[in-house]
């Protein structure tokens, strides 16, 4: 199967799903799962291949698809997350309205993303990018209510990004004469650095918006929290990473390592790094203040994307490997967390962190998976998040950016703060009475979540598997290859051996467990026995969840308003006011209308005769 057929199958699969839905919802569900899982197989087989195909000619431009190691990695991540999201949707979306449309759009987004990562020329890139953008818009708006506002925010920023991108693309076409990545890559070194910078900035706006880099992040918290949960997983897991892909593509495939490091005296990539650092630190602490589980995760996504970009932009092999690996990991654990929260929302009907609690008794599997996800998010050893963050930190420290490293490390503590809040307020603490009948999540919700937890853990203990692939990518961009072993990274300035660490932790756990068993046998008692000494406890009143970090939030809240968002809203308001004023031109009075015509004529003549304008 060649690449064009792959995309075509994906596209047709989406529409076929829609049509099948008209016949029967069961067939549609089965088919959606089937088609999304089916595509993983050929994608997987494409590993290491170097296939290229010109599939169409658009306005005289050849449209090319090509698989590279980088696009392979992204494509696999995209397809896997989408498949899991589709499986999760089966029960999550059951009984909701307009499901045919939902699956169509979900699979269309998937096609768009696959197309983006497989494109080898800018015009197919743009086309797929746009298809992804508008279908995402339709899906974000799906939930109605506040989702509409979120959708508008998303699409307006997205269109601005696309405008910036198409200007860049066409400008490249005009100057280079081709939109093939290879041609452009050979053209860029020949052009002036000012022009390269211009192009890079244009594309950075596009990718920054999609990737939610500060100051372009404001669409994300709304969109992520308002979209249907399975789609939030896709959105956060892979869709925003299309921006990451774009960054990598432009910085390393097209512009090339040397240019990126040296352009503007090295200030360009440093500036991106600083933006990424800002993206880490503020959203992390804004996330601490959130009371909506998905909103919290959304802000967390922004912050984690900051890590990815920080790793990629810093311009060392170690950082690049760490950044790309963190993309992969973030896709896994953030999708995992969104799906877990989705399962909780499905069972309890709420995602308000203040009113949940104690669900560990009711949904143990979801709890453990969410815990693994949170560990990955924090970067606890034995999860994949640890390895990637370790790589990024190490790159920053050895690259002598101690302040960036500080921000990255400190962001991790913020991550712990909000992650614990998430876990505690949903699963720990006391179970409110109203949730005493909650059942565990349905099986189609558990499968994706369990699978993702396995990914998080396995790649945490054996990080060498994906790191090898990523290292070949980074080497192909001209970075120093790293000494990757299956158990981690061997290097002179600090080794990382995950298998040893795993063995040590495992042994210690066994040891402590034995110690635990040595003590006298425990008895299990009810949760509030020792607290209330057997007296009646009004459970809901003693659940400490509301404003969990009160002392902290009181201190940091005044500094953490999203000023950028306020600014954009203000700008939108100004435009609205201005447009109202413009509309007043068409006042409805014929006298004015005629005078417009006559005045226009008069002005033209006066300009000509009096001022000799032309």
């Amino acid at each position, binding site marked *: 199967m060649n690449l064009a057929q792959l995309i075509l199958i994906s596209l047709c699969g989406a529409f076929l799903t829609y049509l099948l839905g008209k016949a029967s919802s069961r067939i549609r569900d089965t088919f959606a799962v089937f088609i999304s899982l089916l595509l993983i197989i050929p994608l997987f087989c494409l590993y290491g291949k170097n296939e290229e195909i010109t599939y169409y*000619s*658009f*306005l005289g431009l050849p449209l090319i698809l090509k698989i590279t190691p980088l696009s392979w990695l992204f494509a696999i991540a995209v397809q896997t997350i989408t498949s899991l999201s589709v499986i999760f949707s089966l029960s999550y979306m059951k009984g909701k*309205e*307009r499901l045919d449309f939902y699956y169509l759009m979900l699979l269309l987004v998937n096609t768009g993303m696959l197309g983006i990562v497989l494109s080898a020329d800018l015009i197919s890139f*743009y*086309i797929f990018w*746009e*298809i992804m*953008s*508008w279908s995402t*818009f*339709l899906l974000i*708006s*799906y*939930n*109605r209510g506040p*989702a*509409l506002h979120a*959708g*508008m925010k998303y*699409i*307006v920023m997205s*269109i*601005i990004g696309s*405008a*910036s991108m*198409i*200007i860049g693309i*066409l*400008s490249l*076409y*005009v100057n280079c004469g081709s939109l093939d990545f290879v041609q452009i890559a050979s053209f860029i070194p020949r052009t002036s650095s000012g022009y390269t910078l211009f192009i890079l900035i244009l594309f950075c706006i596009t990718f920054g918006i999609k990737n939610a880099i500060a100051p372009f992040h404001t669409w994300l918290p709304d969109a992520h929290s308002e979209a249907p949960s399975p789609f939030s997983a896709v959105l956060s897991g892979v869709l925003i990473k299309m921006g990451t892909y774009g960054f990598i593509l432009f910085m390393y495939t097209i512009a090339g390592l040397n240019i990126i490091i040296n352009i503007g005296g090295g200030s360009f990539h440093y500036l991106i790094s600083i933006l990424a650092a800002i993206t880490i630190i503020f959203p992390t602490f804004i996330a601490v203040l959130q009371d909506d589980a998905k909103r919290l995760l959304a802000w967390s996504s922004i912050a984690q994307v900051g890590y990815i970009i920080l790793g990629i932009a810093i311009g060392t092999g170690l950082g690049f490997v760490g950044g790309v690996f963190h993309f992969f990991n973030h896709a896994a654990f953030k999708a995992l967390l969104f799906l877990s929260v989705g399962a909780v929302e499905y069972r309890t009907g709420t995602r308000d962190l203040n009113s949940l609690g104690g669900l560990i008794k009711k949904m143990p599997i979801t709890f453990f998976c969410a815990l693994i996800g949170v560990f990955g998010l924090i970067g606890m050893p034995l999860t994949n998040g640890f390895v990637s963050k370790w790589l990024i930190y190490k790159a920053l420290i050895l690259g002598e950016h101690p302040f960036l490293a500080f921000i990255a490390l400190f962001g991790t503590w913020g991550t712990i703060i909000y992650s614990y809040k998430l876990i505690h307020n949903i699963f720990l603490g006391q179970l409110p009475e109203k949730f005493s009948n909650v059942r565990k999540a349905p099986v189609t919700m558990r499968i994706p979540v369990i699978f993702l937890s396995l990914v998080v853990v396995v790649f945490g203990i054996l990080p060498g598997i994906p790191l090898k692939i990523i290292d070949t990518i980074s080497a192909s961009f001209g970075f120093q290859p790293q000494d990757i072993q299956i158990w981690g990274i061997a290097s002179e300035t600090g080794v990382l051996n995950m298998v040893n660490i795993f063995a040590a932790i495992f042994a210690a756990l066994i040891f402590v467990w034995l110690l635990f068993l040595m003590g006298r046998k425990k008895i299990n008692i009810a949760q509030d026995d020792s607290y209330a000494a057997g007296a009646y406890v009004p459970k809901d009143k003693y659940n400490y969840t509301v404003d969990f970090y009160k002392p902290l939030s009181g201190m940091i809240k005044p500094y953490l308003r999203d000023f950028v968002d306020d600014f954009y809203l203000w700008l939108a308001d100004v*435009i*609205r006011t*201005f*447009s*109202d004023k*413009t*509309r007043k*031109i*068409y006042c*409805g009075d*014929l006298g*004015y*209308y*005629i005078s*417009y*015509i*006559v*005045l*226009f*004529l008069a002005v*033209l*003549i006066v300009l*000509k005769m009096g001022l000799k304008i*032309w």
Partner: protein
Amino acid sequence: MVNPILLIAVPLAFAFSIPLFGLISKRAGRFIPPVAMLFNLVLSIILIPDVLESPVSVFLSGFPPPFGINLYVGPLGILFSAVIALVGFLVSIYALDYIKEGAEEKYHMLYLALLTGATGVVLTGDIFNLFVFFEILCISSYGLVGYLGNKAGVESAVKYLIQGSVGSAFNLIGIALIYGQFGTLNMADIAANINSVSPNQLFIPLVLFIVGFGIEGAIFPLNAWLPDAHSSAPSTISAVLSGIAIETGVYAIARVTFTIFGASDILLFLVLLGLLTLLAGELSAFSQNNIKRMLAYSSIGQMGLILFALGIGTDYGIAGGLFQFINHALSKALIFLATGYMIYRMGSMEISSLEGIGKKMPVSSLCFTVGAFSLIGLPPFAGFPSKFMIVLSALEKHSNLFIVFIGIVFLGTVIEATYFFKVIQVLYFKGAPAGVPAEKKTEISPAQETIKDRGVITGAPIAALIPMIILALLIILIGVYPKAVDEILNASSIELLDRVKYIQGVLR
């Protein structure tokens, strides 16, 4: 080879025969426009290969140009006549069911006259004939705007009439001045001798033409009639006005400035005018609550974009502009047709009253979405290649000024996208629960108000769906396969730019 004169003669004959058919059956009249337009469409398509090979110049009354009246059927003309026939045909099918009340026969007659006028404008090679056909177009559209006979319709028709007449007067003065200077009305002849007169003397007629045709072509600030007229006309007429009439106005400007005046020195002026129009239109549409007014303002914006593209002045840019002509004709017609039945069913033109209609009228809503996406310029719809070409040609100027201009164009696009996406959200995602009848608004619907039962909101009738679906498919087809129109667009843009060829083609 078929004589292109039939393109004008046949619809005109049909138009005037409608009252006769009315004698046979009251219902017969409505079937005439589709037949006539289908004829035109087929004829245009048959002519396209010949015309692409070599333009056809037909002269009437036995005298060769410059003495006789001639038709010049170049690629541009045939492209426009094909688009006019296509849109006219589809809209007339839509009208079979939509136009049920009132002076039905007169509607169909004026409708055909309007299209005949438009076809004449794009085919004629004589500037006075251009004026005459233009008047046919305008006068029929005055009548059609007021077709519903309600207060808003008549008022806006009168406003339109007055402004249009001012424009006609300017045009006539311009033609008189030209005739005084050159002694001929043949466009090719004028073009051939244009350098014999000092530029200063040419300026006044040029400005008069721009203003005169600009009124119909919806150029800012001459377009004040447009929002009223579009919103108070029946949707079929809005579609034709927006998709054909105002585009004909812009065509006339292009023809006059490029072919006659060879206006290379006012290109920048056209660009600026286009940008101004674009911004004015999009900004006005942005906060509009009335859907048809919003679409009308959007048309203004699109005309600005086309003018901008024409002002770029390179063959690729003009081809892009013409592509945008096609796109706008198809998309805007589609959107107006789609909204037609929505407004009719809901009884209000307020955007908020269209809530949740996506579920009740799925095809109409889908068609609206396709049209809107195409106007915004999203792939894989027809708007994408056209916008692509326009922006590309602007960037090919290699001037920082044009990069700023492109920025402004995209500012317009962003605003346009914002309001269109807002409407799409209203259609699909904002909704009263199903089964609850829509609240009846106080504003009077321009469409037939007499339908009593609005409780059950059903999809549009089949006669309305077919043209919409065809238009939507065409938009997608052109978007995916822009090569389909590539050749004729290039030939047309060359026709506009290459005056010598035009002159030789007529005065051989």
